[in-house]
């Protein structure tokens, strides 16, 4: 008997271990529960894990047993000599002893049992009978496996598909295996392509394995189809859903951040529970009507259905994500996809596959990061007084208050404030009269919070059906202290596919998600702001234990809850017909509904005055209920045909699509609740309830097509096109055609490439050009319609004799010639694989032009009295690069890999209606992100210097030592802004650019034996940040003192300021008043670098060995520990997070998350 086995062959044949399925289930369940309870017990399999490495040829069993005894310390007890003489061949690496024993005993009427360290053998004819029954239909198949050069390959895993039977090839590349004629063999070896061979009647097979696939051999999902990456002619990136699993994040955006080059993702609400992500592909294009640069969202397509929200998709249901970046690839989506497409494909089962159950969880401990640190109360008070003195305004802190603040710090005083001693003022001292020492960020946010996620997936199939069912639960608790805020999400997804006949199949895909956010109503969205304007001296509690009224904590904690529920259901029915080989017709219909409900309860709360009298806050109490129903119906009908002949390969696609968006909403609000605690509109008695509704519809219809042609995989060309219409425009300008063309040349398939091929295995050059429409530049579904503005009586604030009355006012200016924006993209790219496909590089250069973008019309004189109408009159060009580099290899037993994505873009204004060249709005040639400002010379050091310096009177009439001295760039002896034009900017110039440059993500991973480690770094290579002083809220986190007493916040950063004792401080002299602006003008001194490197994620996993897995009948069991946002390297001021630096920092803080979890597959 000559047998070859591979260590990974999995079998469970020990008769005495044949428990009933039920028992296994119980064991599995107990094990599972145990895992949940004790997440990280050090599991050691010492008694089982005595592994064996052996390579013997035709050796008697007796000798084999001795070798095993020697390696493991087990003692073999047997009395049957026949057994001892039985000859075997086997080659195992690090295999469990059970497996070695079963291999040895295969085909013998002998079973074994391990008792302590002893292995006992028993004669068992039943076993043989059973095996023979199986073997009856099986024949012995043998063969050799070699590489493409004819060298034999050893160690190739040869398995019978769909079973657990398998062997490995020997040194000569030979194998023998028992298999039935109707079965298939699967050959696999690391570094080579997997190959499946149907046996038919053959009992000898010679197999040639091709070198491992490079990344270029992946199949990539594209619009309305798939394509092998090597055959792609456009710029498309794809990421495997597996790479996103197990991250301690709640939505797809967080998981995808930094994963795909030039897919730029930012959070819309910082680290708040349930915060969604904003997506952008390849940078800015165009301006909004208010003149802000637009970072438009790409189109999301989920399982072929456009317009589906991906923020609520369960990451664990995702098979892959493709990003179509260039216009030629996206042209098939026409006007829906001017700024790229993100295609999400969810998991499916396989026909004929036994059910597989996976369970993943994540237990997360979050701690807020980058919280500003409040200045100590006494320092705060003194600095406020100092700033008031500088500005010549009254001091906010009296000597009496200062004394109490000091006494409180010294412990001489224990209460945070005192009652106002003035007669008949039944009130506590607050703000500047109080004496607390509070760090409001510390109070607002807790130190650590627990959240968790659970996901269960079941997939499998029968002969004619396949299914995947995913269930997910996600509980994210927010960071608020004293109260709670939480996001809960439930996901269900079912993907079913059934072959009705050999030429027709029916697919059903259904997904439902429910997300709820529960947060405090009063100040709920405001606390980040309030924390940044409270004073450390403001008490949290009054001496009588009541919350301080002005701290707003009473409302925060007891002022009612706001609950939102968002239900999303996407249901698709699909019929696929194959009339002829190569010809497919697909028809599907999708209902995509989103239901949003808001219930906002504002409770009146009471704080207690010194006399014991109650003071009511948040009066009157109120309740608001809002329902939104957004329904989206999609019909797709498309047909594809493909044919190959003599090296020519042709694919064609023709289709039709139509979409209808139908939105309805209703909102009711009323004041005066009968009971403070029972929120319902029916239980309010306010005389003037607010009631409003909204309804809108958008219809889109288009026909699309695509032709691919390639010759011998060398020359590839693709034409895309879509003829698209929308209800957004009037009939005569409703339809437009969007073409795209792309081509590629695979140089490495040319004969002249042969000499280079061993090093540069694959090389492909691509070029594409396409036009896309943008109809989403306006959020209005009816931009052609000049609506009068109506206001209901309850929103009016003028009381006539008969009370409030409704009113109506003029419509905005509308331009009747408004039409689509056309966005053109030119893209050149190259893909290559080198060094035995271990290195994969993909590079793209692109230029995206929107030359007729819709923007605010010309800046008209203010007398116009309204915003100018939107017309197609602006242009922007964005140029950039995408780079993806991947490396994977193995050193000894360590497999490792690194994937780098890097992107960069810059946008420039091509056209803007600004004939005078004002630099306070956009102008032709301006780079996006440019900031105009002054050059700082330094601080004025003496009155003499002020007298002799260029006059700064235009900025402010008074200047003194410690104020900023600006540079007189134009040498006219006066600091001014000229005429605020590019030609005459006075002493201002472009001092900074806030566009994030060189955004990168680096994923490092390694696996050693059963351990795996992944580290994910993400960041931005270059970016300026400058903090506005335009209004009092902006820049509070940076400047500390904005000039307004009640809208600033002093952190420890502001210690470093100019004072006579500290003439080299960072900040200038502070002024408590509008005068502050003279020193906080945009200027070179206060340009900060917001470049950063963040260790976004570190994950360490350990998978249990198979012998344990078999005991609990589990295929995979992996434990992992996972850290999100481990640390950040940046030069940015500590009060702000570099991810959010373009704003003023007032956001819900990000969190560092320590997570523990398990992946199980049965």
């Amino acid at each position, binding site marked *: 008997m000559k047998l070859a086995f591979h260590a990974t062959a999995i079998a469970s044949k020990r008769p005495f271990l044949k428990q009933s399925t039920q028992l296994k289930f119980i064991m599995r369940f107990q094990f599972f529960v145990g895992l949940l309870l004790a997440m990280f017990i050090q599991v050691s399999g010492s008694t089982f894990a005595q592994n064996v490495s052996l390579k013997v040829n035709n050796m008697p069993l007796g000798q084999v047993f001795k070798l095993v005894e020697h390696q493991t310390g087990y003692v073999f007890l047997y009395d049957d000599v026949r057994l001892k003489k039985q000859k075997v061949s086997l080659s195992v690496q690090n295999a469990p002893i059970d497996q070695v024993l079963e291999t040895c005993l295969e085909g013998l009427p002998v079973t074994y049992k391990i008792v302590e360290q002893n292995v006992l053998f028993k004669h068992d004819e039943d076993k043989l009978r059973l095996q023979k029954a199986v073997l009856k239909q099986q024949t012995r198949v043998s063969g050799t496996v070699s590489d493409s050069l004819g060298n034999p390959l050893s160690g190739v895993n040869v398995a019978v598909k769909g079973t657990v039977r398998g062997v490995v090839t020997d040194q000569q590349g030979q194998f023998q295996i028992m298999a039935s004629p109707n079965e298939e063999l699967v050959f696999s070896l690391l570094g080579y392509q997997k190959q499946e061979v149907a046996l038919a009647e053959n009992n000898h097979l010679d197999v040639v394995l091709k070198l491992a696939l490079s990344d270029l051999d992946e199949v990539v999902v594209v619009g309305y189809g798939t394509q092998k990456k090597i055959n792609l002619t456009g710029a498309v990136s794809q990421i495997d859903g597996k790479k996103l699993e197990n991250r301690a994040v709640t939505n797809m955006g967080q998981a995808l951040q930094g994963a795909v080059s030039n897919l730029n993702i930012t959070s819309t609400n910082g680290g708040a529970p349930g915060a969604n992500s904003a997506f952008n592909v390849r940078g800015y294009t165009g301006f909004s009507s208010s003149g802000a640069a637009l970072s438009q969202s790409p189109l999301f397509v989920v399982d072929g259905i456009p317009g589906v929200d991906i923020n609520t998709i369960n990451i664990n249901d995702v098979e892959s994500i493709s990003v179509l970046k260039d216009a030629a690839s996206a042209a098939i989506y026409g006007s829906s996809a001017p700024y790229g497409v993100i295609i999400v494909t969810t998991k499916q089962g396989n026909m004929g596959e036994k059910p597989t159950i996976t369970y993943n969880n994540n237990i997360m401990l979050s701690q807020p990061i980058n919280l500003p640190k409040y200045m100590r109360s006494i320092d705060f008070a003194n600095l406020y007084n100092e700033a008031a003195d500088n500005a*010549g*305004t009254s001091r*906010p*802190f*009296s*000597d*009496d208050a200062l004394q109490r603040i000091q006494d409180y710090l010294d412990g001489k005083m224990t209460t945070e404030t005192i009652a106002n*001693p*003035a007669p*008949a003022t039944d009130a506590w001292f607050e*703000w*500047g009269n109080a004496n607390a020492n509070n760090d409001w960020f510390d109070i607002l946010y807790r130190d650590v919070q627990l959240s968790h996620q659970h996901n269960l997936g079941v997939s499998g199939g029968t002969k004619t059906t396949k299914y995947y069912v995913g269930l997910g639960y996600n509980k994210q608790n927010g960071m608020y202290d004293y109260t709670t805020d939480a996001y809960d999400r439930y996901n269900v997804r079912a993907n079913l596919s059934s072959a009705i006949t050999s*030429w*027709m199949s029916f697919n059903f895909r259904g997904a439902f998600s429910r997300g709820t956010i529960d947060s405090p109503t009063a100040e709920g969205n405001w606390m980040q702001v309030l924390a940044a304007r409270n004073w450390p001296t403001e008490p949290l509690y009054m001496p009588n234990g009541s919350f301080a009224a002005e701290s707003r904590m009473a409302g925060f904690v007891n002022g009612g809850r706001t609950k939102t529920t968002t239900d999303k259901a996407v249901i698709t029915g699909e*019929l696929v*017909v*194959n*009339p002829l080989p190569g010809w497919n017709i697909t028809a599907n219909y999708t209902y995509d509904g989103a239901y949003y409900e808001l219930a906002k309860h504002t409770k009146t709360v009471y704080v207690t005055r010194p006399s014991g009298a109650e003071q009511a806050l948040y009066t009157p109490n109120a309740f608001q209920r809002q329902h939104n129903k957004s329904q989206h119906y999609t019909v797709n*009908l498309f047909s594809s045909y493909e044919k190959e002949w003599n090296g020519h390969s042709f694919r064609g696609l023709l289709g039709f699509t*139509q979409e209808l968006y139908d939105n309805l909403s209703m909102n009711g609000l009323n*004041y005066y609740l009968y009971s403070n605690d029972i929120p319902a509109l029916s239980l309010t008695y306010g*005389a003037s309830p607010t009631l409003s509704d909204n*309804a*809108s519809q*958008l*219809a889109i*219809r288009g026909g699309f097509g695509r032709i691919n042609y390639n010759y011998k995989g060398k020359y590839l060309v693709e034409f895309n096109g879509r003829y698209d*219409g929308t*209800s957004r425009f009037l009939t005569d300008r*409703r339809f437009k055609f969007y073409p795209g063309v792309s081509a590629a040349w695979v140089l490495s398939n040319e004969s002249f490439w042969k000499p280079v091929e061993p090093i540069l295995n694959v090389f492909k050059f691509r070029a594409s050009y396409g036009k896309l429409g943008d109809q989403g530049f306006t959020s209005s579904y*009816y931009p052609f319609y000049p609506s*009068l503005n*109506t206001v209901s009586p309850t929103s*009016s*604030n*003028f*009381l*006539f*004799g008969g009370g409030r*009355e*409704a*009113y*109506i*006012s*003029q*419509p905005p200016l509308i331009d009747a010639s408004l039409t689509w924006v056309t966005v053109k993209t030119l893209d050149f790219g190259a893909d290559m694989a080198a060094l035995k496909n271990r290195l994969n590089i993909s590079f793209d250069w692109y230029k995206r032009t929107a030359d007729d973008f819709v923007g605010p019309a*010309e*800046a*008209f*004189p*203010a007398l*116009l*009295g*309204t915003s100018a109408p939107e017309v197609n009159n602006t242009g922007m060009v964005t140029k950039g690069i995408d780079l993806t580099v991947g490396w994977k290899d193995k050193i000894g037993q360590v497999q490792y890999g690194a994937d780098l994505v890097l992107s960069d873009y810059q946008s420039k204004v091509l056209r803007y209606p600004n004939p005078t060249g*004002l630099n306070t709005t956009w102008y032709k040639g301006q780079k996006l992100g440019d900031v105009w400002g002054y050059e700082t010379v330094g601080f004025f050091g003496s009155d003499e210097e002020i007298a002799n310096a260029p006059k700064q009177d235009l900025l402010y*009439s*008074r200047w003194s030592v410690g104020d900023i001295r600006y540079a007189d760039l134009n040498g006219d002896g006066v600091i001014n802004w000229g*005429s*605020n*034009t590019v030609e005459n900017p006075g002493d201002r110039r472009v001092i900074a650019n806030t566009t994030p440059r060189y955004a990168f993500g680096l994923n490092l991973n390694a696996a050693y034996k059963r351990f795996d480690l992944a580290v994910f770094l993400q960041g931005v290579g270059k970016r300026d940040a400058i903090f506005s002083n335009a209004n009092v809220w902006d820049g509070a986190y940076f400047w500390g003192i904005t000039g307004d007493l009640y809208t600033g916040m002093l952190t420890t950063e502001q210690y470093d300021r100019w004072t006579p004792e500290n003439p080299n401080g960072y900040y200038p002299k502070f002024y408590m008043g509008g005068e502050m602006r003279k020193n906080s003008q945009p200027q070179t001194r206060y340009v900060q670098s917001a470049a950063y490197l963040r260790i976004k994620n570190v994950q360490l996993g350990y998978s249990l060995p198979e012998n344990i897995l078999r005991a609990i009948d589990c295929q995979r069991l992996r434990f992992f520990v996972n850290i999100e946002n481990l640390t950040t390297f940046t030069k940015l001021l500590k009060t702000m997070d570099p991810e959010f630096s373009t704003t003023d920092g007032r956001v819900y803080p990000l969190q560092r998350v320590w997570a523990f979890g398990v992946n199980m597959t049965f």
Partner: protein
Amino acid sequence: MKRYICTWVSLFVLLTSCNDDFLERSPLVDISDSDYWTTVNDLRLYVNNFYNDDGLLPSRRAWGTGPYTIDAGEGSDTNVPTNYNRRMNGEATLPSSGGGWSASDWAPLRNINYFMDHYPQVQATSDEVLPYVGEALFFRAVFYYDKLRKFGDLPWASTTVATNSNVLFAERLPRNQVVDSILLDLDHAITYLPARAGGSWSGRITKEAALALQARVALYEGTWEKYHALKNTAFKVANADGEKFMEKAAAAAGELMHMAETNGYPGLDNVGVENGYWLLFNQKDYAASKEVLFWRKYSAADRVTHTWTRYSINGSGMGLSKDMVDSYLCIDGKPISASSYYMGDRTLQDVVKNRDPRLNQTIHVDDNKHVKWYATGEFFTTPAFEINGANNTSTGYQIYKGHTGDFAEFNASQSTQGYIHFRYAEVLLIYAEAKAELGTLTQGDIDKTINALRQRVGMTGGLLQLANITPDPHWEFPTLSPILNEIRRERKIELAAEWYRVDDLFRWAAADEQIVGKRPLGAYKKQWDNYPGATPQFLKALAALPVNADGYIDPFQIYSAMSNGYQFNLGRDYLLPIPTNELTLNPKLKQNPGW
């Protein structure tokens, strides 16, 4: 074969099931001009928006925005804030945009003109339509008067400005032509608007309110043109004809006075009522008032409330100046410099003794009569110096006018005290001033105006006699006639802290006399040393107050920028600058003098 039949049938069904209207989607919750402008009610709903427009009738709901704080906020010589005013000290800066001249600042005009362009579409009788046209014209006048005071010359647009309208790129019209247009709008409004007399309060603009506005605007321009020419400032008007405007002012005011005589409306309220002057300014409802011609109502039940009276208990961060207090005549109608009734100013009680009763009703005095809160039965004792932040009184002459004893007014966003926009007393003062400027003032006119106001507060022994005016060495305008000085004094007293003072100083070109080099003073400080019942906090705050050599509180002494008094730039600061970007956008706009 079956598969092909299925395929083609389904293709056919799908392709033909789409109907052609699929891409026709009309707005579902919008209305446009073509569906509007049909009934008179449509006009009413449209003009309602002017009442709600902050650019026309500022809603004045926030702290520090109420009528009794505006003078202080603008930095007058009579009402003094806790911090000196930057514009008055020449510290204003030139903006590149905004500055009261942005698209949103001009939006109310567009809104009104849009109405003017569309109202003729409504088919109804002129009786039904014209009152609303009158309201629109009234508000256009309000709009332009506000811009006139800020910027002087203005572009005039009487129809909706389009992006290609000539006016958009034209020069500004000289201010006198702008005022001609304002007055013409008001002439029409006066004709179209219904009179209030005999009717109940509707909350809407009345003929009387339009007349009052016309008188106000005309006097403003008339005196501006006269005095800026007289003082030869950079703001004088070419071909000025101040008399024309003053005649218009007198005519409009005279018409109201005629209506008062014939209809009994308008009229003065609280004549002979004890504390009647004070009571006039702290009411929640002026529906029955004859004197208040146009006001704004607030209501807690409708949640239309304000906060501007929140700190009136503490002085609202301001106080009357010594100069202001000294202007009040004694009960005999003589100035303090000449009257034997004058008791000096060592204490508040002395200050108000034997004086024009309006003084006692305008400032707080420790006499167990100046109520703090009715609910606690508590009365004023000492000025609220010790209140920190910017809410305390600045001078010790803590303002009582406008304060109410109703504690609910103190609750943030719960105040509902009414906001007076026009009152008849102003009309009387306009009439007297215009006639005096024209030189046609008679004793009869004085009796109907100045003396009516004095009689209302019981100052019957101190009536003004044209032929017998007591000379006052401290007349503010010694170069002007005694009667003009006395009329200006009366205006200062009657309208104390009612946001007229800064406008008055500017139209009289009087910043050189009343602002430049001046530092407003407060009360005599020593009176509160060892004051009975004073809290330690009060005494500590008092001790910190700076005083001048004569012992009067000198609140701005501590500011080095104020060491030589206000540095108002006479060649520049009477008008605001036009933002520089606007000059670039319309090169025909010329900057105001001095900027």
